[in-house]
């Protein structure tokens, strides 16, 4: 390998080498951190909600006119919904995961605790709630129909029984003995008994620190004349059921407006729109940076090939094979890229530290930089391949031309 003479020759034309090296360094630093941020966003976007999102949808019903009885309509709607062919189950619910709006509160182990033991969201559902959400009960039992209470907006939340997620149960009772324990949803008595634990569901707020802290409460709770329903269709029949539900609900009661039916997949899509946009923008920035770096390498290598045509011919005349010439340019690029990558590696970790300090971002995992090294080495070698092949085709007779 001709590393030493190539390096020594490069040191005599430092400007081009420094410019390309700097470009490679910046690309590595930015690409590593941007990829890490994209990875984090994708991880957030793909967190499972614990629900059967593919088959589930939600909609709201707003009654109007005098004498509209929201609670009565809710009960008759549920009877209609559960009769529609293709409906696996339906429940009223004040909110759903990822929807962005809901009811959150503290939950305590002692009455009148100054600071609650954990934060949670409340999903007020009936005995069909767990089945409609599609969550998995891993301990205890579901609500019984007798436990479902009519609840009024503004009244204190003091249900005798509740069902919590495992994450919340573990937070409240780290020993794993939450089932049957009593907690306080309100600062006063009475207490609520945990009768069931579900594997997983999420809060409505996707940026919540404790996103899996959720509590199911057995309440019928219309918000005045407004009620939100969650419907789970039989597998693969969601779209068909959505159309049928829209029609049946309109027929069942003309004194109300049915809001837009939204599948849980759509809810997720909308909830993570900003994260997706950021991932796309960062992806575009990465693509642009890589393209600019590759073009920079192509440009520099092409210029050097043109500038050194006589020199290449001389090397050929002195015995270099085409492969020797190809290898020369590939090695030269490898050296420049490696120097840039070493600087870029330091820069990447530095940028990560700065992001940690400024935005409480997690630390860049160590393996991003070595993987980035490999990718940019490959990019550099690919970018220089065209000019290097052109160089290898310079005929040796060029050496004797007196231009």
């Amino acid at each position, binding site marked *: 390998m001709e590393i030493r003479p190539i390096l020594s020759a490069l040191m005599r034309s430092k400007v081009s080498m420094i410019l390309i090296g700097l470009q490679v360094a910046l690309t590595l630093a930015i690409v590593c951190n941007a990829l890490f941020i994209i990875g984090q966003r994708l991880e957030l976007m793909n967190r499972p909600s614990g629900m059967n999102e593919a088959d589930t949808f939600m909609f709201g019903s707003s009654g109007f006119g005098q004498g509209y009885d929201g609670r009565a309509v809710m009960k008759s709607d549920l009877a209609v919904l559960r009769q529609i062919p293709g409906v696996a189950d339906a429940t009223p619910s004040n909110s759903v995961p990822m929807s962005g709006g809901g009811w959150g509160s503290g939950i305590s182990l002692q009455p009148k605790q100054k600071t609650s033991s954990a934060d949670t969201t409340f999903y007020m559902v009936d005995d069909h709630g767990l089945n409609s959400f599609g969550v998995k009960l891993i301990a205890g039992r579901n609500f019984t129909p007798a436990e479902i209470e009519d609840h009024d907006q503004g009244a204190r939340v003091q249900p005798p029984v509740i069902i919590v997620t495992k994450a919340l149960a573990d937070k409240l009772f780290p020993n794993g003995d939450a089932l049957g324990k009593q907690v306080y949803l309100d600062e006063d008595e009475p207490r609520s008994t945990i009768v069931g634990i579900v594997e997983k569901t999420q809060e409505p707020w996707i940026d919540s620190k404790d996103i899996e802290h959720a509590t199911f409460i057995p309440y019928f709770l219309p918000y005045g004349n407004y009620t939100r329903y969650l419907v789970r269709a039989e597998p693969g029949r969601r779209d068909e059921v959505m159309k049928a539900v829209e029609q049946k609900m309109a027929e069942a009661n003309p004194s109300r407006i049915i809001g837009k039916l939204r599948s849980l997949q759509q809810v997720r899509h909308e909830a993570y729109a900003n994260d997706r946009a950021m991932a796309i923008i960062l992806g575009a920035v990465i693509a642009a940076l890589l393209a600019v770096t590759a073009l920079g390498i192509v440009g520099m290598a092409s210029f050097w090939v043109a500038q050194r045509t006589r020199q290449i011919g001389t090397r050929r*005349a002195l015995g270099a094979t085409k492969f020797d010439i190809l290898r020369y340019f590939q090695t030269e690029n490898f050296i420049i890229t490696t120097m840039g990558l070493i600087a870029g590696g330091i820069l990447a970790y530095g940028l990560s530290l700065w992001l940690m300090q400024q935005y409480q971002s997690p630390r860049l995992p160590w393996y991003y930089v070595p993987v980035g090294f490999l990718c940019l080495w490959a990019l550099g070698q690919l970018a220089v391949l065209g000019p290097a092949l052109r160089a290898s085709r310079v005929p*040796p007779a060029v050496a004797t031309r007196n231009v």
Partner: protein
Amino acid sequence: MLKMTHLQKVYRTHLIETYALRDFSINVREGEFVAVTGPSGSGKTTFLNIAGLLEEFTGGEYLLDGVDVAGLGDDARSRLRNEKIGFIFQSFNLIPDLNLFDNVDVPLRYRGFGAADRKKRIEESLSRVGLASRMKHYPAELSGGQQQRVAIARALAGSPRLLLADEPTGNLDSLMARGVMELLEEINRQGTTIVMVTHDPELAARAHRNVHVIDGQVTDFDDEPKLRRPVRDGDTAAAIA
């Protein structure tokens, strides 16, 4: 050492054929110093390119040190060139970004010699041309004559059996030209075969034998090696002046 028989080099386009060499025959024996002369465009450089395996020919036969080079692939030609031939170019063709040591090292690396062997050869050949003390200098720091000496050292480092010189003094003033010419004669006396292309009849006269080329054909072939006349100070300078 170098034997071309009825060699032909034709450049073809879809309209015309141009003969750069036509029925070109020459036989250079081992240890000879042959000068190839002729006017510009006569085919001297084409001959040199073909002799040095820098270009392929279109007809005839070429034996280099007994090897029939017709049909050799590009890599085989490169290896043969590296092993058997040393080149001296009119414009020296040193690599400006490499110091003298690394310039001389170029053909040796392609030859695959080990580092210690290369170092020994480089030091010996630079000593031979009187530039051992300037190994770390760059070509731009040398005079034209010194640069051509480095080029000669580079050509000699691999111990080639044939030295091809293309107007080796063409870019030098008379004093430097004389020095280079004396060096070539010295190298020849030590056994290396030299074929020198020149348009200068005075320089050609110092070779053992002259081949005159016009329109791609050998027109005057002095087949009998002549006795070298003694070189005296001022001869070359006077000839060039």
